């Protein structure tokens, strides 16, 4: 998807109601409107060029260029190197300067925010798609931009047995198409009990979902063998036309179990409630599997193995799941660490607290892990990385966990996570070292478009510089 067009001048973010008291909401909206120019909606022209200058470029956690320049064309990095050694198009806009440190945009490997609600009430909701619930102008995306997170994997939340399809987005744009980087990506499952369920009924629900899939496939195959037309007729009743590839049948390619004879059924005729699960079992879609406690890991890994999608599974872990690290290592899956960096357990008798640094456990065991920004939308990835460095990770490990590793988990390592020729032009210009306490994200460039300038950010002015939103409302002075 192409990035959004902007002049490298004033560009404000039009935000929705904030987390402030209600009396501020109106004021903020008004003040934001005062600051905003025309909302950016146009798509970048293919030949759009941008030159980014920085006193220091962090290419990846182990490589840096001093006094460098990045040339972005058509949304991708065309050249990167020391100033003077890189040919710079004279007609391109320039952003940055020697006081900045350039850094790849952070990658959020899993998020269930930015939607009106993270889950439906239905247990097995594989037919849903976050496309229908993502709100591009949600404050969450605005904050992502503010903190330099430029790639976000939005998936449904953990309150389900099997959730819907997610997508990878960038925090720029006001329609779903504008923000999408990769649509129809990923399916969510939860080993942790959905609200109202016990562990037993959750596990049963999980088994039932896959058994129902199998039963359904066997039924339609049997029906086809008997000369019936059930699948195709149901598809037409659901309003789907069978054209092109959808009209073709294909044998099932599951690695753990298969239903013979599926080639008799046009693929497009498979019930839309079952088709995503079929894609999962055939290994065609990645799975994000929630675990809230160590015992959930068992259920998750077993389900993934029994249904042949272990290789495409990423576990989304809460605090205490580090206790199952050996099991996770053995299964060879990567993990996303939600929850806090330090897991605190209180002895019920003495009241003494034991603290475990969760990323450290996985680092030591050799499991690939990513950090994630937490419940508050503003506990950002760079903050997580900085705190993790203090708690036991090395600088390279912490930075890798918020750039390269999540990019790899999302299958986007050729596009994001580091600043190299050919990658997307997702660049942050920071006021200092990425992990220093007083560093701010000053500018954000997404796919070659300069989309954020902190000095013009109205919410930043109110939150950080104490500007009174009411000041913009006064009618006399």
């Amino acid at each position: 998807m192409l990035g959004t067009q902007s002049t490298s001048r004033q560009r404000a973010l039009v935000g929705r109601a904030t987390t402030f008291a209600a009396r501020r909401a109106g004021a903020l909206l008004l003040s934001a409107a005062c600051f905003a120019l025309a909302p950016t909606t146009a798509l970048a022209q293919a030949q759009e060029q941008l030159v980014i200058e920085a006193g220091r470029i962090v290419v990846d956690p182990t490589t840096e260029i001093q006094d460098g320049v990045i040339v972005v064309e058509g949304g991708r990095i065309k050249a990167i190197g020391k100033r003077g050694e890189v040919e710079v198009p004279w007609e391109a806009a320039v952003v940055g300067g020697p006081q900045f440190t350039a850094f790849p945009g952070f990658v959020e490997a899993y998020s269930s925010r930015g939607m009106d609600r993270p889950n439906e009430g239905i247990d097995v909701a594989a037919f849903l798609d976050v496309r229908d619930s993502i709100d591009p102008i949600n404050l969450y995306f605005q904050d992502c931009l503010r903190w330099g997170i430029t790639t976000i994997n939005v998936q449904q939340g953990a309150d389900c047995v099997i959730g819907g399809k997610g997508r990878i987005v960038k925090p720029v744009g006001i329609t779903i198409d504008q923000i999408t980087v990769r649509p129809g990506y990923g399916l969510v499952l939860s080993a942790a009990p959905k609200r109202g369920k016990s562990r037993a009924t959750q596990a049963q629900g999980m088994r039932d979902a896959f058994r129902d899939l199998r039963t359904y496939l066997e039924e339609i195959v049997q029906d086809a063998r008997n000369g019936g037309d059930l699948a195709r007729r149901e598809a037409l009743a659901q309003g789907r036309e069978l054209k092109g590839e959808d009209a073709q049948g294909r044998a099932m390619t599951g690695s753990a179990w298969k239903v013979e004879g599926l080639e008799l059924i046009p693929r497009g005729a498979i019930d839309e409630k079952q088709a995503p699960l079929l894609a999962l079992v055939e290994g065609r879609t990645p799975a994000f599997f929630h675990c809230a406690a160590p015992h959930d890991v068992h259920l998750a890994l077993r389900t993934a193995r029994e249904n042949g999608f272990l290789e495409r599974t990423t576990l989304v872990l809460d605090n205490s799941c580090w206790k199952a690290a050996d099991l996770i290592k053995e299964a060879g899956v990567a993990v996303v660490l939600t929850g806090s960096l330090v897991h605190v357990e209180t002895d019920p008798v003495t009241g003494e607290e034991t603290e475990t640094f969760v990323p450290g456990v996985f680092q030591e065991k050799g499991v690939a892990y990513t950090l994630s920004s937490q419940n508050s939308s503003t506990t950002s990835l760079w903050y997580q990385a900085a705190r993790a460095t203090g708690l036991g990770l090395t600088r390279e490990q912490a930075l890798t966990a918020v750039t390269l590793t999540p990019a790899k988990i999302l299958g986007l390592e050729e596009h994001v996570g580091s600043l190299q020729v050919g990658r997307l032009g997702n660049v942050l210009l920071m006021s200092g070292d990425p992990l220093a306490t007083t560093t701010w994200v000053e500018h954000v460039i997404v796919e070659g478009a300069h989309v954020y300038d902190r000095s013009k950010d109205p919410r930043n002015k109110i939150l950080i510089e104490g500007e009174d939103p009411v000041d913009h409302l006064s009618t006399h002075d």
Partner: protein
Amino acid sequence: MIALSSRLAAGATLALASLLAIGAASALPGATAQDGAESAPRTSWTVAADRIHTATGRVIENGFVRVENGRIVAMGPGDAGADFHVAAITPGLVEASSGIALGEATVEQVSETTPEVSLEEGLDLFSTRWTVELNGGVTTTLALPLDENVLGGLPVVIKTGGGEPTLDSRMVKARVLVRGAFGDQPSRSNSPFSGTAWGMYHRLPTTRMGVEYEFRRAFYEAIRARNDASYASPGAAVLQQVLAGEVPLMVRASARLDVRTALALKAEFALPKFIVDGAGELLEEEEMVVASGAAFVFAPLTFDGNTGIDGGVLPWNTPARLAERGVTFALSGGSHPNREYRLALQPGHAMRGGLSFEKALEAVTIAPARMLGVADRVGSIEAGKDADLVFWSGTPFEYTSRITGVMVSGELAVDPRAAK
């Protein structure tokens, strides 16, 4: 990183010394005194560090701090036989507003204004919440009553660790100030339209104006009591001390309207010593704040600006701006449930907002100590003060540093030598 060579040498010396001590003790019959000495925690140490931030304006590079029997006795450059070495030392942090509500027992709700009730007997020192604060670097804290009353009583300054969990062992000072509160909390549960019509739910105040009314009534009665014995009461006696400036008044006010109310009442009664706690929206009334002469304890700086008190918002540049204007203030973590907002991280947040390192350090050490009237004992690394120290793995308050050790009253509550 910890210098292994000096650690090993010190460790060997320590081991030898303790062996000798044990040997000597067991040689004597009926050695009860020696038993006590063996089991009492050690309170004399010499600690070396790359940098020692004393909070007096002096920073000692490659120096040591010597502690004897729970007091700081010396500090300076050099490493004079250190027991162990750390990257940096700061004074133990002083939390001016603890936020640890140990239940309704901390506030006497029989009346809306109970300024005479001291918290001394209402504290649960066995609570593990104090230990959590201690592990977070806070060695001295002000234990407050809940803000359910307009004038809640007399808080206590205590140590969060060291010695026995008793008031005798841990109290630093009682009756340090009078606590009051503006805003929603003193009136929140008092609606006569909810609950039964009798009992404490029938009391005032039910609105902010009721809170202000109660506050003024209490003070005017105290003034009247000077001449009219029929208005005398224990509460009036305490408020007369506040009026005379003998005891500070600390009120909670976060949102702009509450800050205005508080400062206006300070002016109305000409209260000489006045502290606004949980302060949030100060920049919006910057001139009033500066002119008032009051001191301020900030609510915790949070990433989205919400103080969590009456919808007040605290912009991150507030401490820096007030420092420029010469206003006295302290940072506070309020024992926030989210560990990222606790006191040890607040200076980092304030520095992001533009506050200098030295001022940020003072705002969590000597400034709150002075506000609470305990600066003779805590708040900086100076000879004669209590041995309350925090040991860091790098530059203090940076997000990339962590607390590796805490010493309170000379005891190593968190031992930096413990293996990771």
